[in-house]
């Protein structure tokens, strides 16, 4: 009986384990090899061991640190904005959604559109001559900022990212809000609690776990941002919108510095891993 079980377990786990080993295990090994060696696209098959040189190169590269700072800032700011906006919308629109479920479908359209497409769409929206936004700015205020200029590009990207992914936060909060039992609200109402106090003292505390989850997921997604920035502005004016993902991509494909790109990827992996572990520990403590 026992032995039969372990054979069965192996068969059940087989496909996923093989798949993971093939698609992730081998490349991980490769990345370690290349991360510690000197390689170009011409010498792919004969990497030359170079120790920590790649890591020294990366950490000495100011662009790397700029990219890291950009990603951190971008992730943190967009996460907070999306969650604040999503929470407000979810709580305020919940009665509407309850009666007219289709309204949710309209609000989640942005997150069904590919981020890369969204970046391209903003090219149109913000275009000096063809874009509707500058057009309306001019006709109403007689003036329009240079949205993608060095002074504004970061803000523009933050707004674009926020508008695309606020629906995600909205959905999470909406579900959390709807899963609060109505009799809690009724009990509070009978006790004389007014809506504002109901929100702060009962609804929000009950939604706190979801707030943490949403902040975390949105931060991670903002931190690793690539598609929409790449299609909208690329590395941006003077490389000012180089996120970590774009930095690694450019180092690898544009400049062909394989070892350095790999070293940066390994550093990114380690930091992402640390953030992940910390966040999970935090969440576990919050929800015993």
């Amino acid at each position: 009986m026992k032995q039969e079980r372990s054979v069965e377990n192996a068969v059940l786990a087989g496909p996923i384990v093989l798949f993971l080993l093939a698609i992730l295990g081998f490349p991980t090994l490769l990345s370690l090899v290349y991360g510690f060696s000197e390689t170009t696209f011409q010498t792919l098959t004969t990497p030359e061991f170079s120790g920590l040189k790649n890591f020294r190169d990366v950490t000495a590269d100011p662009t790397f640190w700029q990219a890291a700072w950009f990603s951190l800032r971008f992730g943190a700011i967009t996460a907070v904005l999306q969650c604040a906006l999503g929470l407000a919308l979810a709580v305020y629109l919940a009665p509407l959604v309850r009666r007219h479920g289709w309204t949710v479908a309209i609000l989640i359209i942005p997150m069904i559109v590919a981020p890369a497409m969204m970046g391209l769409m903003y090219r149109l929206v913000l275009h000096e001559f063809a874009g509707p936004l500058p057009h309306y700015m001019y006709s109403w205020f007689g003036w329009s900022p240079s949205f993608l200029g060095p002074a504004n590009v970061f803000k523009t990207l933050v707004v674009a990212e926020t508008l695309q992914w606020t629906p995600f936060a909205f959905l999470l909060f909406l579900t959390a809000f709807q899963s609060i039992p109505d009799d809690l609200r009724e009990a509070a109402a009978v006790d004389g609690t007014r809506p504002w106090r109901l929100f702060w003292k009962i609804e929000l505390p009950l939604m706190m776990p979801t707030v943490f989850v949403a902040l975390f997921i949105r931060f991670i997604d903002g931190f690793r941002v690539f598609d929409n920035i790449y299609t909208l502005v690329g590395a941006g004016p003077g490389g000012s919108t180089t996120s970590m993902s774009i930095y690694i991509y450019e180092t690898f494909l544009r400049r062909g510095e394989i070892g350095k790109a790999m070293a940066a990827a390994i550093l990114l992996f380690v930091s992402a891993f640390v953030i992940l572990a910390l966040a999970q520990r935090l969440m576990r403590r919050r929800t015993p």
Partner: protein
Amino acid sequence: MKPRLTLRWIVFAIAAFVMNFPVLATLVTAFKSSGEVSRNPSLWIEAPTLENFATVLTISDRLNVYHYLWNSLAAALIGSVLPMIVAFPMAWAMVRRGYGRAILFPLVVNLRALPLIIFAIPLYMMYATLGLLDTRLGLGLLLAIVNLPLALMLLVNAVAEIPVELEEAAHMDGARLPRLLFKVVLPLCRPALITTFVFGFITAWNEFLFGLMLTTREAVPMTVGASFFFATSGGGVQWGTASAVMVVAALPPLLLGLIMYRRITGSMVAGAVKG
């Protein structure tokens, strides 16, 4: 006590308009003639026309939209179905036997939080040696990795929701493991499988980075193809045609998503809670 909805309708309309503004602008522009685009950037169409779509849907040297669509479809199908196939038996073993719960489950789930670029480079190297660069299969395999965490989480949740008595009853009825899995567990997981598929297909279709790095000509997916269209058109982008390309590119996941929006809302939540 009916909450008044009028003000909420207004807030909803504003939120929907602002968040969907780029989509709306693109949709509008796609129906403008090239002459009108340069003259009239507003959201109002003076003379609606289908000429942009006609251009897009005609095969030319610059753009073969059918090729991109077919690449995206094939890769997205592989990328959404394969994770379900490999995750289903594992999900059952995790729930019912606790097998792989300690290591494999957190490992796979945390994949979701890692920047994809980390894997893109070593995979590029591996694909270069295996001849998988610029193939639909190669792209599909990677998209499968992207979708694997959600597939596993959704299926684990689905199996955990099946009352264990049902499986015990099947055991008592003489069913061995394969029959149990395929005749009892699998049909009961159908809602979760549909959700996983919908969400996985949309994610795979919308993926950009892997498409950009791992394909060059033959297997270029729609998202990357659309960006090529912008890049190759040099200084003067044909905004009308470009918009029509984007509409075509965004339409398949959008249709699927809007038809199945209840599934998406469900899976977002299930996927996030365990995150």
